[in-house]
């Protein structure tokens, strides 16, 4: 009889533990930097996603896990991290999450009754579960440089495979390295397989929703040096101000035969103001500055974000004329750019060495010509570079779309 009571007691204990073990559930799903703080009627969940390609999908998955458990507090706050930094905060109610996941209410209703903001919270001192630090991602991307408009050869191109590694060393500190394997070179006639990036960045967040980045190393477009970037938001993600500054030399990390440095102590800078129309997740921005190939001017960009897809149209004018097709000269450069997701939506669980697909493919198409103007330092994989995924308006829109389409 005593054994039967023990078995029944053990069974109910196991069920109760399973019901309330949100951390284990999210840990087994591959979320990182997990922290669960429960005070009276309030639950605070900190998490970082590197399992899902898009933050909107990860948020949906977290909400589903919360909805499955009946023993959680009514008031719930989610704090979403990137590189160990708290970025976005969502305050809502358990009952709303249940209704959203069960389909009783729409995401629009959920969004209107929840509070999405860039967080001002600091990372708590408690030790997180499943740290994201000192884990390395190995990804392979593909890219092609090309040029149109020559009778000798209609499309000159240089396709390149880009194996890369990325590691977060500690809170906000990361290293990135990308090697370019040139499949063939029909465009430059000197390009060889060589390092494309090898830099370290420290990402930070200052009071007042200011994100910062300081990087040093070797960047794309043969820039060797340091760069700094600061981003400030006003009225949540409605207005954004970016400042960038870099001091670089134009040289290679592993110089191809016959190539050499062109300039030294090269200073480039820029200021960019962006307005976001949240209902259409659309940004209108103007950037003014001195670009990395000594041209000074401005770029106006109108860009729409469709979850992970970005399509933008730009107009650029600098202090030099632009050579277009068949040698025609233009004052302004028009074109479009798009960023599209590639690879799989759900990666393997993060580990000390994880193989994954690259996340995005970026292409800029210069309709008028002038591929060598308006170039800026590009630091992929850093917090500021990935911020759009964490915008409150992006997360809201993603929830609305997933409710609508079930994707």
């Amino acid at each position, binding site marked *: 009889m005593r054994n039967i009571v023990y078995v029944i007691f053990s069974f109910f204990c196991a069920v109760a533990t399973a019901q309330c073990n949100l951390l284990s559930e999210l840990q087994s799903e591959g979320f990182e930097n997990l922290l669960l703080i429960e005070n009276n009627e309030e639950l605070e969940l900190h998490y970082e996603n590197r399992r899902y390609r898009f933050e909107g999908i990860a948020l949906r998955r977290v909400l589903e896990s919360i909805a499955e458990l009946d023993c959680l507090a009514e008031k719930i706050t989610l704090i979403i991290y990137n590189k160990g930094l708290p970025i976005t905060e969502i305050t809502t109610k358990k009952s709303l999450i249940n209704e959203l996941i069960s389909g009783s209410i729409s995401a629009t209703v959920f969004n209107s009754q929840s509070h999405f903001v860039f967080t001002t919270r600091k990372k708590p001192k408690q030790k997180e579960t499943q740290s994201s630090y000192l884990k390395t991602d190995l990804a392979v991307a593909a890219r092609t440089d090309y040029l149109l408009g020559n009778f000798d050869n209609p499309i000159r191109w240089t396709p390149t495979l880009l194996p890369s590694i990325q590691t977060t060393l500690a809170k906000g500190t990361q290293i990135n390295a990308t090697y370019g394997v040139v499949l063939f070179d029909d465009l430059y006639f000197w390009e060889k397989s060589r390092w494309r990036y090898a830099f370290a960045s420290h990402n930070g967040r200052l009071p007042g929703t200011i994100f910062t980045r300081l990087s040093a190393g070797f960047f794309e477009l043969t820039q060797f040096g340091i760069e700094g970037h600061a981003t400030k938001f006003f009225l949540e993600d409605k207005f954004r101000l970016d400042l960038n500054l870099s001091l670089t030399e134009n040289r290679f990390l592993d110089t191809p035969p016959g190539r050499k440095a062109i300039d030294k102590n090269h200073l480039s800078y820029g200021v960019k103001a962006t307005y976001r129309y949240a209902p259409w997740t659309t940004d209108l921005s103007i950037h003014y500055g001195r670009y990395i190939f000594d041209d000074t001017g401005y770029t106006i960009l109108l860009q729409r974000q469709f979850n992970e897809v970005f399509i933008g*149209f730009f107009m650029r004018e600098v202090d030099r004329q632009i050579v277009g097709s068949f040698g025609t000269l233009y004052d*302004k450069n028009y074109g479009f750019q798009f960023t599209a997701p590639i690879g799989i939506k759900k990666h393997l669980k993060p580990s000390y060495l994880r193989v994954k697909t690259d996340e995005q493919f970026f292409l800029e198409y210069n309709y008028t010509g002038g591929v060598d103007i308006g170039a800026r330092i590009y630091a992929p994989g850093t917090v500021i570079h990935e911020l759009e995924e964490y915008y409150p308006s992006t997360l809201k829109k993603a929830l609305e779309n997933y409710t609508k389409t079930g994707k």
Partner: protein
Amino acid sequence: MDSLFFYMRKYLIGFVLGITLSSFSQSSTGTRGLVKVPTARMFEDGTLSIGAAFIPPGYHKRTFGLKQGELVPNAGLNTFVTVNLFPFMEVMFRYTHEANLVVRPYTEYFPDRMFSARFKVLDESEKKPAIVIGLQDVTAAFDASCVGCSNFSSTYVVASKQFYFKEIKIDASIGYGGGLGNLKVKEFDGFFGGVQISPTNFYDAQILVDYDATYLNIGVQKQLFNRIQTMVSYYPNLQKIGWVLAYRQNMF
């Protein structure tokens, strides 16, 4: 026996229409439209369409050299990417290729690039038609390409209204095209229009008839797997066969 033949014929016609027609027409120019002419319809916000349209020999317009602007014996292929960037705006980027030509200095041939933007200025209501203003291949007017490079330029306004005739759904469109500034009109010069006919029994079946200000064209179309649009058309003046094949997806 007559009755059996009647039903067999009816279902055969229904089957043919069912596999060749659909309710999402995309014209051979790459924008939303009928066989060739644009309409005031737009796809859902965030729709991306990538496709190609085969222009039959004798109807393709040369885009370079001495015979620029003239119809040539070679066939053409329009390859396009069309995006509904906003609920009220559609943009399209197209390469126009001429078959049987290679890009070499001695041919002086290079595929033509063009950009189009269409803006919806009025939504359809019970009494009012939908109205769209289109800017096709007009980048030269904004100093983004050379005037001589514009081979398909047209600025137009088009209205579309849907109504029923007995049990047949008809979507009628009429428009007027002209130049823009010093850029002469090269397509849809004057009045154009057409109808899209969807028999009620085949709600996803459509017959397209249009007049592109020069020729009369007719076509049938079908959407496959909710992603792929196919259209077979007879033009110009019902003389030759052309086709459109496009893949469509909403980016949200």
